[in-house]
């Protein structure tokens, strides 16, 4: 356990060394945020003040919370594991007395939690200062939201891990990574809240783990879902996470036995 805590801190420190990059991400974040706020705000106005249960304040909360939390989850699927498998470097990882999946999870959480400082909080501050966004004043949504955020982060990692670990069989997983990126962005509610989807498409989204990665946290922190509804969403997150981690363990074991490393 101590080792995993160390990996987590190391990941956090690693990211904090590149402050310039963090500022860059914030600039990118804010630019996309204003574009999203423009089109989603126009949608609310065009719909007569409320669309899919979102008024303008809630829609702005969706935009800026989403922008703020985006750095914490992995919706791109660009982990380096597949490359390590292809090059054989993964053999070094296997030689360590640590679980491959869990140690990578710890580093991931450390790296990505850091993003909340230069990217998460400022994005939310921009939204509060410059748009009619509102946030709940009670502590509950933030506490449960923190739990949902970590679960969503871990889930995004666990699913990306599944994509990457397939490199044991497929060698090249870039096509799969692009597929993951398309679906994850769309169904996690990165651009448009899942609540605005037509009914059948909401059904499709609910059958995937993607809404649990980002949408759940946004809904809880913004106070749109509270009480037992919020707890239910967190329970769904836990189920997906347990399933994805277990599948990753199985695939890692299977893949390891297939692994052939060239050279001495």
């Amino acid at each position, binding site marked *: 356990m101590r080792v995993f805590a160390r990996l987590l801190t190391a990941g956090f420190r690693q990211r904090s060394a*590149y402050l310039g990059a963090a500022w860059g991400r914030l600039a*990118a974040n804010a*630019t996309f945020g204003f*574009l999203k706020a*423009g089109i989603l705000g126009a949608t609310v106005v065009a719909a007569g003040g409320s669309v899919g249960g979102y008024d303008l304040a809630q829609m702005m909360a969706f935009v800026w919370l989403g922008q703020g939390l985006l750095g914490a989850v992995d919706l791109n699927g660009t982990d380096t594991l597949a490359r390590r498998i292809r090059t054989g470097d993964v053999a070094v990882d296997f030689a360590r007395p640590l679980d491959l999946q869990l140690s990578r999870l710890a580093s991931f959480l450390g790296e990505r939690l850091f993003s909340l400082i230069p990217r998460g909080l400022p994005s939310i501050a921009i939204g509060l200062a410059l748009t009619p966004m509102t946030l709940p004043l009670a502590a509950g949504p933030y506490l449960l939201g923190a739990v949902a955020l970590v679960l969503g982060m871990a889930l995004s990692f666990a699913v990306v891990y599944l994509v990457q670990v397939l490199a044991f069989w497929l060698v090249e997983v870039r*096509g*799969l990574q692009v597929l993951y990126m398309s679906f994850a*962005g769309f169904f996690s509610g990165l651009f448009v809240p899942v609540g605005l989807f037509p009914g059948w498409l909401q059904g499709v989204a609910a059958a995937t783990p993607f809404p649990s990665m980002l949408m759940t946290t946004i809904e809880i922190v913004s106070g749109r879902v509270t009480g037992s509804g919020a707890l239910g969403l967190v329970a769904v997150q836990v189920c997906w996470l347990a399933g994805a981690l277990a599948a990753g363990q199985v695939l890692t074991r299977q893949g390891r036995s297939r692994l052939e490393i060239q050279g001495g």
Partner: protein
Amino acid sequence: MAEARGPLAPYRAVLASRVRAQTAYRVSFATDLAGTGLVSLVELAEIWVLFHNVPALGRLTFPAVLLVFGLAELTFATADLLVGHLDNLPTYLREGTLDVFHLRPQPLLAQLATSDIALRRLTRILFGAGAVVAALVVNDVELDARAVAVLLVAVPSGIAIYTAMFVWAGGAQFFLVHAAETTNAFTYGGRYAGSQPASVWPGPARVVFGFLFPVAFTGYLPALLLLGLPGPDWLPTWLGWCAPVAALWMWMFALGTWRLGVRHYQGAGG
């Protein structure tokens, strides 16, 4: 290759080898093509979902926005095919492999532009072209001389604007190294902005994406010209005819940044 001579011969040879390399693994290539096509489909779905809730956005209906989307997608995807791999520059800078390019007797930008050509991006180009054709049909645009002229001005200018954006982003990388995402805000953010009705942009975004990085000229303004619709404040419809000026501005800005960047580059030491 009998005609492998002349100043462009090295580039032709390199590009031919890239094409052969990518089509060698057919299954992998096919999934790549399909995956990239899906990216376009999902981007269109994001717009469609909004119009599922409201009849019009920024005074444009969904068929009208389909035209904006198609033009932006077609021009961006073509630019991405031609020079999108300039995005790899930060990796070369970090790993010090850029110095290898400096050793060869060809201009750095030309070498980088031909260093990779991702054929999978062909699907996006086709998807964009399909969206343009579909939009022209559903919007009932008459393909008279004027409409053809609009397309002949808009499409090459759009491609030029987006390629220049990649070059600009590459030039800025020499200063930023670890901050590729800053420039992504303007290349990929520009692409995202390009497929929206510019009339919904907040004021500062209208300045940034209307004039500084003029992506409004890639989809929105030509669509207004084709559909005969009025533009919002700051972006009157006739401005669409000035797309070549916008492209020229973007290229001057891009080459200036690139030169500064290359001059700033110190090499990886050793």
